[in-house]
């Protein structure tokens, strides 16, 4: 019988548990079997539990397994809230007012804030509310009304960027919420981009995509004090979503590309490493105006719409890199 060491010059390690490192092979001393970890070079999307209420122009906050989604447009505008525990979506306490274009920040289904947006009467709101998993509490109002903005960060450390206060053209306004009050900070470099996505925390984040008069590919990087230009996305998209934890680690997905690409809702996914964007695996079902939350390696895309628009209940989970342990029958 030939020996692996005799062929390759080195032996296979015997371990009692999988290494979890893609591409490795080992002998599992517990199972007494050879195993290897299959590594997929790209992260991939898989289907996750469907929402109870399909909608677009909502927002979702939290992680891939602990999230909250609120507001949006069915149509009509909705105040619906859903809490996600990694297994299913459950109806949460409704927003005080049906709101679309609402944005937010938060770490989980029990710690989030929603701000701005548009209700059936007002095209641009300055209201903000925090959510603890079961109730909404009014937070201090923003300095300016905001609609079609992007938000990122945490419940008590949230950033709002972009917007068109009062329904007038955008100003690139930036506001920071510290748990007590909103403060106006340095504005964005681009002053006319709406429907961007954002990711990160209030001291390290970025915004990207959007609509500067058609699908956009701009990126701006936030260091806690000011904005700088980042490398453009590869595919310009309007109303994409984002996930990520800092200005060096983010994922952009979904959105509506230019008509020239043919497939408007191509489910475009791109990875941000702090310097540039690289193409990722496309979503299973192309959608725009989705909610997005989580991290670059474990993101969640919630609702949105395909062509139409037709509000979608679909939720997809992104995992990167995907590694699966396989057991061989060699032994």
């Amino acid at each position: 019988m030939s020996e692996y060491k005799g062929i390759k010059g080195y032996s296979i390690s015997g371990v009692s548990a999988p290494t979890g490192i893609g591409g490795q092979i080992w002998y599992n001393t517990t199972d007494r079997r050879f195993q290897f970890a299959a590594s997929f070079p790209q992260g991939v999307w898989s289907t996750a539990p469907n929402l109870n209420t399909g909608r677009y122009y909502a927002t979702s906050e939290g992680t891939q397994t602990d999230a909250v989604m609120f507001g949006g447009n069915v149509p009509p505008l909705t105040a619906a809230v859903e809490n996600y525990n990694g297994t299913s979506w459950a109806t949460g306490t409704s927003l005080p007012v049906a709101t679309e274009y609402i944005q937010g920040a938060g770490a989980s289904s029990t710690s989030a804030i929603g701000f701005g947006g548009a209700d059936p009467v007002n095209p641009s709101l300055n209201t903000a509310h925090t959510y603890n998993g079961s109730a909404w509490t009014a937070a201090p109002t923003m300095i300016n009304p905001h609609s079609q903005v992007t938000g990122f960060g945490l419940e008590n450390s949230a950033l709002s960027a972009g917007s068109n206060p009062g329904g007038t053209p955008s100003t690139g306004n930036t506001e920071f919420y510290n748990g007590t009050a909103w403060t106006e900070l340095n504005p964005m470099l681009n002053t006319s981009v709406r429907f961007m996505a954002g990711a990160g925390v209030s001291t390290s984040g970025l915004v990207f995509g959007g609509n500067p008069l058609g699908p956009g590919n701009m990126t701006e990087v936030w260091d806690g004090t000011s904005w700088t230009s980042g490398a453009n996305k590869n595919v310009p998209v309007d109303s994409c979503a984002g996930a990520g934890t800092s200005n060096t680690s983010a994922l952009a997905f979904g959105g509506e590309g230019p008509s020239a690409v043919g497939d408007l809702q191509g489910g475009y996914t791109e990875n941000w490493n702090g310097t540039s964007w690289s193409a990722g695996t496309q979503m299973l079902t192309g959608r725009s105006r989705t909610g997005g939350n989580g991290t670059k390696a474990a993101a969640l895309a919630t609702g949105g719409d395909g062509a139409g628009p037709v509000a979608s209940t679909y939720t997809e989970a992104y995992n990167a890199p995907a590694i699966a342990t396989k057991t061989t029958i060699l032994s």
Partner: protein
Amino acid sequence: MAKTYQYCVAENWGKGFIEIGESATLNIKGLPGNVWRVPAHNKNANLWISKVLGTPKTRDEAQAIVDSVTTQYQSNWDADNVQGETSEEKEDRLGQRPVLLTLEE
């Protein structure tokens, strides 16, 4: 010419409908009308279609379904107007007018 893709119609029930491993190896794409595109001549793709109780469709049948749904979306988009709304505001509200997709053989 050998087929690259095959199509089926199936209802996405959410978690478990497309697992990570299936997504990584099968390049599954969802299309309007609950049409799904997967590789042709692929045992795992065939197993996935069976798992989701998919109804197999020829490329032309799938194209007809996608066209029918998209045409309806276009009609809905054309008819959805708000008095005084500019074309830009309409695209903000509804997105761009849906476009027809050509499915690959």
